[in-house]
């Protein structure tokens, strides 16, 4: 009898829910993740299909300045008579692209530095971590104002700035996790077998930290969108890209508030809030599912339950 057959004889296959795809089980066990994912899918579709579903173009004057919300323009018009709903739809694409690529830059840079620093340790670790410390103590907002005004206002620069601000968190987090994994016996075993550093990192270390990276990436996108909105609101966004942050800045700048034109500011603000919330819901749930040790039972306030003794006859 082969070990495989033996195992099958001892543990008969069970025909229950175990065969369902893991994503399905994850969403079922974490309703907030399902809600977050649903919201994000809607916004992603809007971003992808934007130019086709938007009723008007992003620069098309279709009515009076600060026209009130009414039938053909459900969210009203802005200071140039541009339809707010159309702007919102076009802005979704820019905001999401900046969010994803900004987070990607942060994760790639931070992840690489974290893995190298944690894996090799010693002097290299020290050097990289002091550089990280340097970036960590710089105030984010001041850094990005300075960089944006030196490099100029463009989407590419905003993405780079977001990467510049957030890679440090990622590097710190990954480094500490890599340090834990590096000390495990199977990494030592791989070293003893003569595996190269690259192989150990790719085969043994990376798979262990990947769940952490994934969950953090989702949370990072939310941060990136927030930062993009903040940069744009401060007037340092790309003047040619109508992101949601730019819409808020524009409304604010052209005194929408004194006109009483709340519809120029509230919709993009709400959109940012909803998307960030959705990313957070998904991210925290993913963290929960990918890193179950975060909720160790002995740290819970709940305890085991008492129940009556089973019926003697039924038990036998």
């Amino acid at each position, binding site marked *: 009898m082969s070990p495989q057959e033996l195992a099958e004889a001892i543990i008969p296959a069970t025909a229950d*829910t175990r065969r369902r795809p893991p994503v399905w089980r994850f969403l079922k066990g974490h309703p907030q993740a399902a809600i977050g994912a649903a919201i994000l899918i809607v916004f992603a579709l809007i971003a992808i299909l934007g130019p086709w579903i938007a009723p008007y173009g992003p620069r098309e004057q279709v009515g009076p300045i600060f026209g009130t919300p009414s039938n053909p323009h459900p969210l009203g018009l802005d200071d140039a008579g541009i339809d707010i709903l159309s702007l919102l739809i076009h802005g979704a694409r820019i905001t999401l692209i900046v969010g994803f690529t900004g987070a990607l830059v942060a994760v790639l840079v931070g992840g690489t530095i974290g893995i190298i620093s944690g894996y090799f340790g010693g002097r290299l670790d020290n050097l990289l971590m002091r550089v990280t410390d340097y970036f960590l103590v710089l105030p984010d907002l001041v850094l990005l104002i300075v960089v944006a005004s030196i490099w100029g206002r463009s989407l590419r620069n905003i993405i780079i700035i977001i990467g510049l601000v957030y890679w440090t968190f990622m590097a710190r987090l990954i480094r500490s996790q890599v340090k834990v994994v590096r000390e495990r016996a199977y990494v030592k075993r791989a070293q003893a077998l003569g595996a190269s550093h690259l192989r150990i990192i790719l085969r043994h270390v990376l798979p262990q930290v990947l769940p952490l990276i994934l969950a953090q990436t989702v949370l990072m996108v939310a941060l990136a969108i927030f930062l993009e909105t903040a940069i744009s609101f401060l007037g340092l966004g790309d003047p040619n890209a109508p992101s949601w942050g730019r819409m808020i800045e524009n409304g604010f700048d052209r005194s929408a508030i004194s006109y009483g034109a709340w519809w120029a500011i509230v919709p993009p603000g709400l959109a940012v809030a909803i998307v960030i919330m959705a990313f957070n819901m998904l991210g925290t749930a993913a963290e929960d599912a990918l890193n179950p040790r975060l909720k160790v*039972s002995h740290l819970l306030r*709940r305890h*085991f*339950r008492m*129940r009556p003794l*089973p019926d003697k006859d039924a*038990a036998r």
Partner: protein
Amino acid sequence: MSALAVEDLHVWFDLPGGRELHAVQGIDLALEPGERLGLVGESGCGKTTAILAMMGLLPPSASVAGRVLLAGGDILAGGDRTMRPHRWTDIAMVFQGAMNAFDPVRTVGDQIAEPLERAGLAAGRAARTRTAELLELVGISGERQDRYPHEFSGGMRQRAAIAMALACEPKVLLADEPTTALDVMVQAQILELLVRLTDELGLAMVLVTHDLPLVSQACTHAAVMYAGRIAETGTTRELHHAPLHPYTRMLFEATPDLRGTDAVRSIPGAPPRLDEPTVGCPFQPRCDRAFGPCATTRPPRRTTEPGHLTHCHLEGGA
């Protein structure tokens, strides 16, 4: 009155999909002060779960039924609430892999003194004195209390864990494989220490282990568990020389003997699944003396001499 009595203890664990695993299926145990009970059985038979239930340390996914009596009073009845006042002061535990149970960033003495302070038995200077006494009791110099766990050897950490369990002078000590992962010499020392402590302090001890010779050596009584139930319990001598349950006999036959001439015989097969109800005797598929009723009827509880119990259909012994 028994120092520790367990009556009809059941433990279930929730499984995904609303199913349950009946890990401990109604066990009874009784210990007098000074008695040492060896709880043996193969991996997954419920030994550790049973003693964790006696300490009330099961996770939230567990549900428990039955009684755990300390000097006559049921401490399990109210769940964690009634368990808490007795934990560590009346019933203490040496955990599995206890040598790794210390916090690496606090001194050993600090961690031994913690239960003393929590129970309000000693604090400050008095706690230090008592910690030193406890360490001396297990054969470690009291001056070492300011050392960190990594400065101790494996055997010393195991002793320190025992000292920690004894801090509040409990009446009952539960030891979960206290000698695994230690070399044979240190194992023998730890065992000797536990025997000496139970004799001197009148402790009742439950020793969980896979190691049958260790039970014969150190325990007055033994209980053999199989698939969440007690197969047989009695004095160590009775179980060794006149086993009533074939599983007990086969376990002894599977143990190498220094002077014996018989070949070591292993027990074929594997234990049954515990997430489905068992019909008849759970050991029946592996038993070499199974007959008619074994497959259909759960074996009754039978006793030959006082304190020697078994759950088996065989009447003339195994």
